[in-house]
């Protein structure tokens, strides 16, 4: 009882060390990539790697991915894998916003947000309340919303400047992606950073975050602790749909066209960023800062490969292998800590 149980103190130390490692793990990998870049640069194999401009390019490039990943991380954190309806949510909110641009900029944004939230709420209710399998349900949802886009807009793509003759809302819409603070920092980057800070705060410093953690780690226990798990899960899906909507607006603004194919691939790419960032699909583990790290690692990886002149085909192979490697190492570390839940 009191202190008579034998404890292997070495194990406790590794426990703390591994914990530290797992919390900064992804940044260690990011640092590793930067060191690799610097070494390659000093050897003269690549150039201009460690410059402000290049670093800005990297973060700029992954800003949209980061926005989607931050929201979807809430779903992963709640133990519900991912939202496969993200690509069609991007397409649908984008096309709706362009369509509504005829009534002005604000209605366009509001309309997109409303549509995004409706998708989030439907996902949330069906998965939270009725406990549908998240992967399958969001897959079904993506089919349905794709069907809606195809029904309403047939195969058209619609352009902001064709929808309305008023150049002002078109200019505003165009600048969702293109606006730069001090001519350097892009709006999506700011949005991503704000979302990361807010997301990290929500996840780690609010009651909702604590309850979501419990929901993700042990759903039934959470229910028996008085937590409204159905609401928590629904909120996670709504948050995801919300940030996906923001990404949808930005992507549509960037491509200057509302079309059904916008956003393709963002589902699996976001999952990749989240998982590389140290969140486990079992739920309740990881952080938004980690997800940011995961997103940056993806950006760094792409950057170094392009600077090295690695061909498109080999890039895919390397990307997949590094992904599996990072997740595998993470799983092994967790297991050595006695957490068999990767």
């Amino acid at each position, binding site marked *: 009882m009191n202190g008579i149980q034998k404890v292997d103190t070495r194990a406790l130390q590794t426990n703390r060390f591994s914990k530290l490692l797992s919390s900064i793990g992804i940044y260690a990998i990011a640092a590793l990539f930067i060191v690799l870049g610097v070494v390659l640069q000093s050897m003269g194999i690549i150039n201009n790697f460690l410059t402000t401009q290049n670093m800005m*390019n990297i973060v*700029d490039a992954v800003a949209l991915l980061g926005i989607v990943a931050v929201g979807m991380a809430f779903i992963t954190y709640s133990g519900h894998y991912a939202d496969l309806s993200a690509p069609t949510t991007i397409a649908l909110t984008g096309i709706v916003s362009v369509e509504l641009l005829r009534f002005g900029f604000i209605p366009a944004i509001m309309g997109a947000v409303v549509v995004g939230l409706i998708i989030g709420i439907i996902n949330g209710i069906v998965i939270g309340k009725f406990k549908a399998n998240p992967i399958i349900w969001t897959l079904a949802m993506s089919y349905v919303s794709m069907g809606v886009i*195809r029904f309403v807009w047939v195969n058209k793509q619609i352009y902001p400047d064709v929808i309305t003759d008023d150049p002002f809302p078109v200019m505003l819409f165009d600048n969702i992606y293109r606006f730069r603070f001090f001519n350097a920092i*892009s709006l999506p980057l700011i949005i991503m950073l704000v979302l990361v800070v807010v997301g990290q705060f929500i996840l780690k410093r609010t009651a909702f975050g604590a309850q979501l953690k419990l929901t993700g780690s042990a759903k039934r226990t959470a229910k028996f602790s008085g937590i409204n798990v159905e609401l928590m899960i629904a909120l996670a899906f709504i948050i995801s749909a919300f940030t996906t909507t923001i990404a949808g607006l930005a992507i549509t603004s960037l*491509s200057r066209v509302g079309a059904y194919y916008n956003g393709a691939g963002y589902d699996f790419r976001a999952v990749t960023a989240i998982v590389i960032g140290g969140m486990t699909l079992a739920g309740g583990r990881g952080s938004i800062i980690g997800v940011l790290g995961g997103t940056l690692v993806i950006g760094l990886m792409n950057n170094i490969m392009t600077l090295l002149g690695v061909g498109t085909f080999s890039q895919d192979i390397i990307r997949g292998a590094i992904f599996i490697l990072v997740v595998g190492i993470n799983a092994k570390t967790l297991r050595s800590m006695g957490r068999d839940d990767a």
Partner: protein
Amino acid sequence: MKKQVKVVLLAMVLLCLGGLLFAQGEKAVGVTGAGAAANLEASLKVDTSVLKAADGQPLLRLSSELPKIPTRPANPEALPDTDPLRWFDMEYAGWDTKKTNIPASPKDGAIGKRVVMIVHGDHPWTTACSNGAKKVADAYGMDLKILSPNWDLAVQNQMIDQSINERPDMILIIPLDATTAIQQARRINQSGIPFIFFNTLPTAEAMNYAITWTGPDDFGQMRKLAKVFADEMRRRNPGAKELGIAYVQHAPGGSPYFARSYGPLSELAGYAPEVVTLDMQAPGFEADRTMQLVSDWLTRFGPRLKGIFAADDSAQALGIIEALKKAGRDDIVVVAAGNSKIGMDMVTDGSLFAITYQTAEGDGALAVQTAADWFNGKELPNRRDIPQHIITKADVADFYPPQW
């Protein structure tokens, strides 16, 4: 009990199968022979040259310039990528094919003919193409049915089979893939239904079974664009010993992947030897990924990079222009293949130097027109090209409003 259930199930299955055996394929609809001559006469009177596309350009135009066909090298694949003849099989497919088992024209006029058009998939381009096709079909009073397999090869195969089953007078088809087209072509050919490939060039072998092919000469067009591209770079960098360029490629797996990177590559090797290819990448059709790619190129090559050749003038071109704007590099010449509104807007504002004129409506229209010509008993060449043109700021206004 279990046994009984099994027996009942088995009986049901047998019953179904038995029923199916008696079900027969639909018989071919006989061609009306009586009014054939009158129909032909009326059909020949139809004038489609007055039709206009949505951009105000004439809907139907044929390319006036026909390329000279070089002799095929023994093994094109052994040649280096920079040799134009390396791409012989892709570029000159159809010009010199030996037609086999081609049905003879009934010479009874196009009016009232049932034509099935199988495209590749849903896209705004396809919509425009279908519109063009419909305009010509309406002019001839043809019954045109358009099927879209949504970029799924298995579905396209199925649609071909279903069309064969339906026995129309003609099938028009955009092959989803140049190589699988051989089997598709053989299948239709064996069924005796005349068919025409359009838009995408199948391999030479597939062309043996088709009446003809119509559409844009992607290679030729890209070679043209490459020349304009090189000229502009020379103009902006007078006397430069080296002009570094990079290619943003089309998605791998189709002929545009080759036509829109190796076409210009092999052309420039001869036309402008000072042009040096720095890199080629296929980032897909997403603006943000293209943007990252180009930003990385700017980091990697810096001032060496003088021009970018893109396979797509909408999302890819947007990504390129964004990256260039961010880096403040307005000296770089960007050209892109395609004829979309986004591309034309960027040509108008000067950020994109040139794009290709590629009429989507005309593409579909020419296919139907060619079908009509066949019904009317016209002699058809082995391929018919839509005209080539490079759009720059000087004449971009003529092509508004865009077709898609």
